[in-house]
Structures are given as C-alpha cells and as structure tokens.
C-alpha cells in the first residue's frame, strides 16, 4: 500500500549552501524531518550549481521518511546567465537590462520544461519570455 503523504514542502535554497535558517529549518522541523540530514544531502547534490538558487520539493510520508526532488535553477538565474547580466531591472516596465535571442529562450525553456509541467516547447518558451519581461529582459522572437 502506498504511504500516506503528510507534507509537501516547496523551498528555494542556494545551491551547496543550505542552512537551517528560517523558513527552511522550521518547515522541515515541523514535518519531522532531520533537517541537517536533508541539508547535507541537498548541499552535496547541488554543489556543482553553486551560485544558483535551487527550487526543491520535499514529500514527507506518515512514517517520517521523505523524498525530495531538486528542480532546475530559477528561470531568472538561467536568463541572467544567458543575457550576461547580474541582476534584473528595478523597474522592468521602463528599464531594459538585456536581451535574449530566440535560441537562448528555447534552450532555457527546454531545460525548465519538466518544472513547468508542460511538454509543449512553445508554451514553455512563452513562460520563459514572460519571466524575462518581468525582470526587464527583452526577448527577440
């Protein structure tokens, strides 16, 4: 019989540098997870992506066992890397800080597709383009 899920926790944690500071520690502690064990595993697995913030989804079962899935880096981090910028615009409506080509857009969309819950590349590209605009990055369609 499948184990009952008691918690589903979605956190965003810097790769290789997870600590139990709130809200991470409390979210894990309240679910009964040994937070240091989880963080150690997270840090070990994400060390190669150091510099990115990694979304991670943790499923906790009734017997306190858990499974976690580390997702792709934030779309915005991938956009920054592709556009060669360090940060998004403060006022994205009026300020443009960089440009993404269609190819760059496609490759980010491809990487993020499993996280977006879509198998439609065009749909994933539209999501990435939307995120780019929100940070003041122009997209060349």
């Amino acid at each position, binding site marked *: 019989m499948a184990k009952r899920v008691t918690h589903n926790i979605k*956190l965003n944690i810097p790769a290789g540098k997870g600590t139990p500071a*709130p*809200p991470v520690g*409390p979210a894990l502690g309240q679910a009964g997870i040994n937070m240091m064990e989880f963080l150690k595993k997270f840090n*070990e697995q994400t*060390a190669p992506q150091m510099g990115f913030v990694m979304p991670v989804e943790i499923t906790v079962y009734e017997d306190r066992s858990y499974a976690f899935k580390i997702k792709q880096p934030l779309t915005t981090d991938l956009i920054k890397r592709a556009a060669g910028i360090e940060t998004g615009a403060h006022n994205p409506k009026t300020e443009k800080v960089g440009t993404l080509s269609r190819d760059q857009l496609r490759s980010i969309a491809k990487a993020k597709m499993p996280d977006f819950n879509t198998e439609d590349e065009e749909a994933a590209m539209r999501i990435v383009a939307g995120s780019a605009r*929100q940070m003041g990055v122009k997209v060349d369609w």
Partner: protein
Amino acid sequence: MSWIEVKASFDQSPEDWSPLIDLFVRHGCENTLQTDFPATILACVVEVPGARAEIEALSLELRAAGAREVLVGPYEEQDWEEAWKKFFKPRRVGKSFVVRPTWEEFDALPEDLVIVLDPGQAFGTGDHPTTRMCLALLEEAGIPGSDVLDLGCGSGILSIGSAMLGAKSVLAIDVDALAVEVTKANAALNKITLEVAVSDGIVEHQPPTSSHKPPAYDVVLSNIISAALIRFANDISRVVKPGGRWMVSGILNPNWLDVKKAAEKAGFKLEKRVEEDDWVAAIFLR
C-alpha cells in the same frame, strides 16, 4: 536572534515562481518557502539595522509584480527545533561509541565512550549515515597518540570522538562560525580540550603539540561535501605525515570515483571504504 517574516499572497500560483523568488533573493532573502494552494511565498529576514528599509522596498516590488497582499510581521518562532529533537535518540555507533543528546538519558557500559551532544544548528548528530560511518571508521584510523585535524568539524562529534580515543592533540576547524561555537560547547559538555578555529582552509594552522613545519598531522578527518574534498585533496596531502591517514565522508556514491581520483592524484592510497544508504566514507593512506 529575532526574525521578521515577509509573506506575499497571490490570487493564483504564477506559471513560473522564479521572478518572485528572484525579487526576494535580490533583497537578501536566499531562502524562500512557497505554497500553491493558497498561492503564497515567504521569507525571513534577521532584524538588523536597514532590514526594515529593505523589506519596504521588497514589499513594493512584490505588489508591483501582482501580489494581492504582503504581510510583514514578527516571525513566530514555533517550536521547530524542539519538534525535531524528539526524534534524536541515544544510539550506539561502531564498537565503542554511544552518541547521546543532552536531553536524553542512557545506561552506558563502563567501556562505552559516550559523546554527549547538542547539535543545535550545526552538522553532525550521529544520526546521519555520513557521521555514523565516520565515527565507526574513526576506531580504525589510528587515532591514539595522533595529532588530528578535523576539517569541517560541524557539531564537533568527530573531534570529541578522537579525543576520547586518545588523540595527542585535536584541532577542529570549520568555515561556519556557528559550527565552531557549537563544537566548543559540545567539547565543554564532554569535558574535552580541543583547539577550535574558524577557517576556510588548512594552510595557516599548526597542531599545538608540533613545533615543526608541515606535514604535521597523523590523521585528517573531513566529513564535508565531495566538491570540498576534491578541492582540498592537495592541501591535505601536504599536511598529512607519510604513513598518516585522511578519513573522508559525506560523499554520495555517484561522486565517489571523483573523490578517489583526486585523493590518489594527491598521493593517497585507498585503505578502506564503507557504504551505507548511498553514502560513502573511506580511509586513505598517505
């Protein structure tokens, strides 16, 4: 330490949370927690001078990005550390060690080496395979009479274990100042004398009982992450005496071969390897 919570609510989950998470990161909140039903994202900020202004700017940007509501308030320290402590019980590790949390009792045998521990927010409870394997391996690492360096001491569990096994000297270092404080506190709990220091490398340190230049340690212990083991392999090789040992742990199985390769390239030979739950620990001989 007092924390301020910033929580933004949305009418529905965005297709991509990244731009919102990025706003938090830009204002210094690298850790965020989100829920889809209801659609919320929250972070906690340490109450320091300037924090309020930063939160004010973040709130404005969150509203501009479509937040229906941004709530800022004191973070309710729920009993999260306590919730987790319930599950940390005394346990036997290896042949002679017993790891006992401060808040638990244990009927030890006369020959037991009991390490009393309050891990707080540092790594190493003896509950985790990497620490457990490392502590068990410690008994085979030739610790008695040795000068020991614990690189990445965390809770101090391996340093304390080494002192109990009869190390001549133990130097415990960690990049995390909090870990160093926890190690000091745990050493005191166990009435153990350790040299403890905050450091992100090993170069400037000398074991207190050694007057000569490196190589100076009989045993180096590193229960850290593979990337750091690989990065430190050469430095460690320089400070381990010929015939001395480097004990490594914290390695996920898929990363093991890279660690082994780096160690061998730095002049170490594999002496023993153990594995549990997809984690690997090993002893290398210099």
